[in-house]
């Protein structure tokens, strides 16, 4: 599912201009990270794409649909938005009911709903918690239940809002595994995140926003290597990039593997001299 944004502008009533002429194209199956400090307009943009907010000017195309001609609920067939705070999203009495809520709204037959339920719970290691009340679970488990509930919609486009906040070590690994599967399934994914290390590792393309405008739309390596861009948007580079800078390397490795590979290359080059 590709997405096209044409010159979107949006201002909250009685308040700031949250989006100024934002244009963006996301090809089907591609991944994108949306970064920027608080108030830059990231969440507003995501909500406009999903139809939760209507832009003042400009258009949103989700596939062949003009988003303004459809309600947010209809658009949910094509896009799911996972909120940052799972407690804003959970309202059923059991995990099972929660995860099946979306598919039921889609009008799917019970057998299909059950099958999706089983599969989604398994991927996120929530099978044993099927009949538990979401609020009895730990915050990490609730976050995954919210993710599962959105996942069960099987929408071709997913928007994740701060997927890594509050997760501990094992949970982050679980998330990595989940994302790998989404990549395999060919889902289009947009993630909003403050976690630059996460962004560097998972996303080839980074869109930097500040004050409602798109400051940059480029490959991750380029974005994280541009010091003035990061300064202008009040972002810090990922840990490994900062390290490479301090070590005065010409490269900017984005993952642990890339870093070690660069290190190995340099060591060998030094050894030869």
């Amino acid at each position, binding site marked *: 599912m590709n997405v096209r944004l044409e010159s979107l502008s949006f201002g909250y009533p009685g308040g700031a201009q949250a989006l100024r002429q934002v244009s963006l194209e996301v090809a089907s199956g591609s991944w994108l990270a949306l970064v920027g400090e608080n108030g830059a307009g990231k969440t507003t943009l995501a909500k406009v794409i999903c139809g939760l907010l209507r832009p003042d000017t400009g258009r949103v195309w989700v596939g062949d649909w003009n988003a303004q001609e459809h309600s947010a609920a209809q658009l949910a067939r094509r896009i799911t938005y996972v909120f940052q705070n799972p407690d804003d999203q959970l309202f059923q009495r059991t995990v099972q009911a929660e995860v099946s809520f979306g598919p039921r709204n889609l009008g799917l037959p019970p057998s299909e709903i059950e099958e999706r339920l089983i599969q989604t719970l398994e991927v996120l290691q929530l099978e044993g918690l099927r009949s538990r009340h979401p609020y009895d679970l730990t915050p990490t488990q609730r976050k995954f239940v919210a993710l599962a509930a959105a996942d069960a919609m099987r929408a071709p486009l997913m928007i994740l809002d701060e997927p890594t*906040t509050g997760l501990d070590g094992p949970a*982050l690994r679980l998330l990595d595994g989940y994302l790998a599967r989404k990549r395999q399934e060919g889902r289009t994914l947009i993630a909003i995140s*403050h976690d630059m290390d996460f962004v560097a590792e998972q996303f080839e393309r980074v869109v930097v926003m500040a004050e409602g405008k798109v400051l940059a739309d480029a490959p991750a390596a380029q974005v994280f290597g541009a010091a003035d861009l990061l300064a202008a948007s009040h972002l810090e580079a990922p840990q*490994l990039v*900062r*390290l490479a800078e301090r070590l005065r390397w010409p490269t900017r490795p984005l993952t*642990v593997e890339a*870093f*070690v590979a660069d*290190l190995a290359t340099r060591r060998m080059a030094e050894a030869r001299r």
Partner: protein
Amino acid sequence: MIELDGVTFTYAGEATPALQQLDLRIGAGELWAVLGPTGAGKSTLCSLLAGFIPHFYRGSLRGKVRVAGIDVPGSSLGEMSEHVGSVFQNPFNQVTGARYTVREEIGFGLENLGVPRPAMLERIERSLALTGLSELAERSPYALSGGQQQRLAIASILALRPKLMILDEPTSQLDPAGTGQVFTLLRDLVSAGETTVVVAEQRLEWVARAADRCLVLQSGTKAAEGTPSDVLSSPEAEGWGLCQSRFSRAARAAVAQGVTPLGRQLPHTLDQAVEYFR
């Protein structure tokens, strides 16, 4: 400052204890970080040190708990709040809502404690200065960013001159800028001798920079204790469910691939990593 001996606590209605046979000694004037995955008992420990266990949360508590010279089980919430300050995860929920400006918000606790007005004014100014909120003194607490609200929570607690401050994952809902503000503030406070700090956290890069000592919890028991470098470089560290910084992960990978020699202490901060990989 803190003495725990054989502490075991089980929440009412639960089968397994949240803390088991925990022994702990924390001296005054230090910044301790409590590490561990979700469910390890970090929040339970924080609640215990603040007196919320057993005076707010019910359950069975065994063992000796002395905090700031007070026997916690024998005390009361009111008394504990005069010596121990608590800061929680959600900055928004800590704004009382009963006051209209930052300045008055800080004064809320002082009013409750019956501090005379001249002393109140002085303490509020001091709190504002220490937390860098002086310019925001006349703003509504609800008009602040998350990081600023957390600093306000800290300022409000600081004004009560607690001997000990307990913070339960204070930066988990904050962005990197806010996280940096909070950690820098905590480090400055302890270094200036204002208070002792115990903070439960997941962000290891900051913990390694700011903490004097660490405690690692696993399923309610102590798994390790020591300086951040010692604890985080321990060979068992990978099994503890912590979110290791990329620095140490890169170092472990480099050692595993034979690119760097074994046996050197792993880096956890940027400075340590620069030294390590030079």
